C-alpha cells in the first residue's frame, strides 16, 4: 500500500465518514464548536496563569493557580477528542499541511511548559512568600507565545491546505 492508500483508508473509516458527511448539526458543526470552547478554556486558563506570574492580579496567591489545572485538563481532553474526530474526518487535509505539525508542536511545547511552571513555581513550598523569578516569567512568556501561535496556526489550517481529501485534487 502506498502512502495515498493510507489516506484513502483513513478517510473511509466509519467515524470519520459520519463526522464529515452527516447532515446532523451534532456532527461536524458541534464538534468544531466544542473545539473552540475547549480552546477558550485551555488557552484562556493558561493565559490567566501566565498573567498572574507576570505580576497582574498580585493578590491571587500563586499556589492557588494549581486550582486552574482541572479546567486546563478539561479543555485539553475536550480538544484532544474533538481534534481527533476532526482529523478522522479530513486526514489528508491536515496531514499534508506542515502548519498542522507546527500547531501540534506548539501545543506540545506549551504543555511541557505548563508542567515546568507547575513543578518549579506553583507547587514550590513557600511560593506565596517569595517573589516571582525571572525564569518563571520567561516560562510564562513562552506559554503565551506558544498558545497564540497554536491558535493562529489552527486558524490558518482553513486557508493553507493543499489537498482536501484523498482524491489529491489540487486546491
Amino acid at each position, binding site marked *: 500500500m502506498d502512502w495515498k492508500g493510507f489516506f484513502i483508508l483513513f478517510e473511509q473509516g466509519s467515524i470519520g465518514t459520519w463526522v464529515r458527511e452527516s447532515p446532523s*448539526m451534532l456532527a461536524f*458543526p*458541534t464538534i*468544531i*464548536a466544542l473545539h*473552540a*470552547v475547549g*480552546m*477558550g*478554556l485551555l*488557552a*484562556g*486558563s*493558561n*493565559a*490567566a496563569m501566565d*498573567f*498572574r506570574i507576570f505580576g*497582574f*492580579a*498580585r*493578590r*491571587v*496567591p500563586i499556589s*492557588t493557580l494549581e*486550582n*486552574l489545572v*482541572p*479546567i486546563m485538563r478539561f479543555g485539553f481532553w475536550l480538544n484532544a477528542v474533538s481534534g481527533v474526530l476532526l482529523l478522522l474526518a479530513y486526514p489528508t487535509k491536515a496531514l499534508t499541511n506542515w502548519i498542522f505539525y507546527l500547531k501540534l508542536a506548539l501545543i506540545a511545547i506549551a504543555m511541557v511548559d505548563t508542567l515546568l511552571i507547575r513543578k518549579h513555581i506553583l507547587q514550590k513550598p513557600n511560593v506565596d512568600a517569595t517573589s516571582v523569578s525571572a525564569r518563571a516569567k520567561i516560562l510564562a512568556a513562552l506559554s503565551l507565545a506558544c*498558545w*497564540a501561535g497554536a*491558535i*493562529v496556526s*489552527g*486558524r*490558518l489550517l*482553513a*486557508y493553507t491546505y493543499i489537498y482536501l481529501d484523498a482524491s489529491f485534487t489540487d486546491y
Partner: protein
Amino acid sequence: MEVFVHSVQVWLKGTELYYIMNNVNWAWRTSESIHFIGLCLLMGTVGLFDLRMIGLVKRVPVAALHRLIPFGILGYGMNVMTGITFLTGASDQYIYNPAFQMKMLFMGTAGLNVALFYLTMYRRVASTAPGDEAPFPARIAGGVSLLCWVGVIFCGRFLTFYRPPWHWCPWC
C-alpha cells in the same frame, strides 16, 4: 426596517474596509486569528470568574481574581473590532444568518446580565472569602454568563452552516 438595513449594507460596501476584507489576501485570516485570541482572553478571565462564581476554583479569592477582568475587556474589544471587519466584509452573510442573530441575542443577554451583576451584587460578592461559596444570586449570574459565552462561541462556529439563503429557521 428592510429599507434601512439595505441602505446600511450599501454604505458598508462602499467603505475602504469592505474593499480590504474582500481584496487583501491576509485580511480575513488575520482578523479571524485575532478574534480567536480574543475569545481565549475572554474565556480565561471572565469565564474563569464565572467558574469561581458557580463554585469551582474556590480557593482563589474573588476580589483578587477580579483584577484579571481587564484582560477580558481587552479580548472583548479585540473581538468587537474584528467582528466589525467580518460584518463589513460580508454583511449579507451575517445579517440574515440565524446563527448570527442568535449570537447577538446571547451577547445582549450577557451584557444585561453583567450590568445587573455590577449594579446589584458585585460589592457583596467581592468580600467572599477564599474557600467560600459566592452568594446565591451571584452563582446564578455566573452560570448565565458562562452559558451565554459558550452560546456565543457555538453560534459563531455555526455561522458557516447557516449561510443565507441556504438555511431554515423558525423565524427566517
